[in-house]
């Protein structure tokens, strides 16, 4: 549905997007993740035809955004970082104007506007001026605007930014409901959002793609070795050595201690499940097994490790360039 090939955007000597390639299949939600200034907005602006790329190609809904921009735009809905509202218009007037320029046929306009207002829950502010709306409503009117012509592709730039927790949950649910009918790209720097809403993630840093995968695979890939956390009541005896003798264990570290209750981090060979053996060892030793759980790297940690790793590689190159 969306195909991006070797996209590059330079502003003078500054490269905002550097050789970015990825694909999004029909009905999929792709999360675009990266720190501020990583090139997320620039990539989205290229995909929506707002600005041309310096190099590379982008195909949206079967149309090249440079060669057939009007056709591509007809099939794309876009919510920019700040919802593009005309402050002196009422919500209903605004949506009616957007419906016109997005090419919704006159006969269907009224019905489209009505149903989209219900869907995004803004029907209670239809006759209010856009300038009088709260941040949450503005964001939802922005979403309604992007959906009004029932586009194949939805591009949402930080759709939950500035919303309160309840609104964030509602908006995420709305986006999830939209997938299937629409192919969605959403950008964010909030990590749980990605694991909750997206099927695939593109992590971008300094204009470059550093990883493309599902949130689960990303977590697994970065785990490297498997680590378990085990908390036992050994009644004062030292369990460290016994745990280290369990087959497959590579390393045991004491993590915390509260009188006789001790927590250990147990690392094992990759791909080997040692939970049964570990539990048996604890129980046969007569200790109390209080907790046993796998320790996963959170998306936050993955994200940080990916983006800082990248920066570490980058540093010397930049220094020579500046010198």
């Amino acid at each position, binding site marked *: 549905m969306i195909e991006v090939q070797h996209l590059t*955007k330079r*502003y003078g000597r500054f490269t*905002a997007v550097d050789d970015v390639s990825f694909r999004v299949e029909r009905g999929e939600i792709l999360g675009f993740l990266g720190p501020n200034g990583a090139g997320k907005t*620039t990539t989205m*602006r290229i995909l*929506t*035809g*707002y*600005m*041309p790329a310096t190099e590379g190609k982008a195909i949206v809904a079967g149309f090249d955004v440079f060669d057939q921009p*009007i*056709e591509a*735009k*007809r099939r*794309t809905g*876009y919510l*920019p*970082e*700040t*919802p*593009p*509202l*005309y*402050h*002196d*218009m009422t919500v209903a*007037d605004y949506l009616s*104007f*957007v419906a*016109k*320029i*997005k*090419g919704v046929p006159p006969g269907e306009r009224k019905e489209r506007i009505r149903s989209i207002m219900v869907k995004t829950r803004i029907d209670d502010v239809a006759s209010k001026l856009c300038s009088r709306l709260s941040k949450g409503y503005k964001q939802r009117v922005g979403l309604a*605007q992007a959906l009004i012509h029932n586009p194949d592709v939805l591009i949402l730039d930080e759709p939950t930014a500035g919303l309160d927790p309840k609104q964030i949950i509602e908006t995420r649910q709305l986006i999830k409901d939209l997938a299937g009918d629409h192919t969605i790209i959403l950008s964010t720097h909030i990590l749980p959002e990605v694991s909750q809403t997206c099927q695939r993630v593109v992590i971008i840093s300094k204009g470059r793609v550093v990883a493309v995968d599902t949130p689960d695979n990303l977590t697994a890939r970065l785990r490297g070795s498997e680590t378990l956390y085990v908390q036992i009541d050994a009644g004062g005896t030292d369990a460290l050595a016994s745990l280290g003798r369990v087959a497959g264990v590579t390393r045991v570290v004491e993590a915390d201690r509260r009188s006789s209750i001790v927590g250990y981090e147990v690392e094992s060979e990759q791909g080997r499940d040692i939970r049964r053996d570990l539990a048996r060892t604890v129980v046969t030793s007569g200790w109390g097994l209080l907790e046993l759980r796998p320790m996963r790297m959170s998306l936050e940690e993955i994200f940080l490790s990916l983006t800082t790793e990248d920066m570490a590689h980058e540093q010397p190159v930049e220094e020579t360039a500046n010198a």
Partner: protein
Amino acid sequence: MRNILAIAQKELKSYFASPIAYIVIGLFALFYGYFYAVYLQVFLRDSMSMGQMGVGAQAVNVNQQMLRPVLQNVTVLLLFVLPAITMRTYAEERRSGTIELLLTSPVSDVQIVLGKFLGALALYGVMMAVTLVHNGVLYFFGHPEWKPILTSYFGLMLLGGGFLSLGLFISTLTTNQIVAYIATFSTFLMLWVISWIGSFSSGMFTDVTAYMSIIEHFDDFTKGVIDTTHVIYYLSLITFGLFLTARSVDTERWRG
């Protein structure tokens, strides 16, 4: 065409949703009324003294001696009023980010430019409609010739169109409405007085500066003459202004 009209309609609506339309039209009506009253007095005094000298009422012409000077003063008024109409067109879209909506919608740059131009021209038309009241009263009591009045309005629309297209272009260069106003006003003024510098010499320079002057082309319209030279001048000016606007928007895309 549907897109152009949708944008033009939106523009016109937003003028009336903000104080701009009311201030522009209000001030214009006030000054127009003032000019009208003054020249009416001048005309009455002149025709009375002509009558006493026995020349007769036929010698005084309400078109030439009253309407023409009033309309020439209207053009001065446009110098101040029209930049206020165009100053926000693009500047405001860029400041508020709504330009992203327009540029990512399935409409071409040319359609956006034409829509905005027609919207501004429509407001200008509404403003000019105010003067129909005065001229209607004149019709009721006097006997002006309607043809020169018609050509004058035609000329005013062309002149205003030229100003508006340039104003639109200047509005694409800044996000600050005050900067847009001052730059537009200065450009208009320059186009107005450019012939002065040529009046001291002769030959090519004089001809060129006189041709460039936006006001030199207007006079014939008030006399009831539609000269294609002038019509072509104004139409080229409008096209030039709209062309620059479209180019400027496109350049802005590349720069980001």
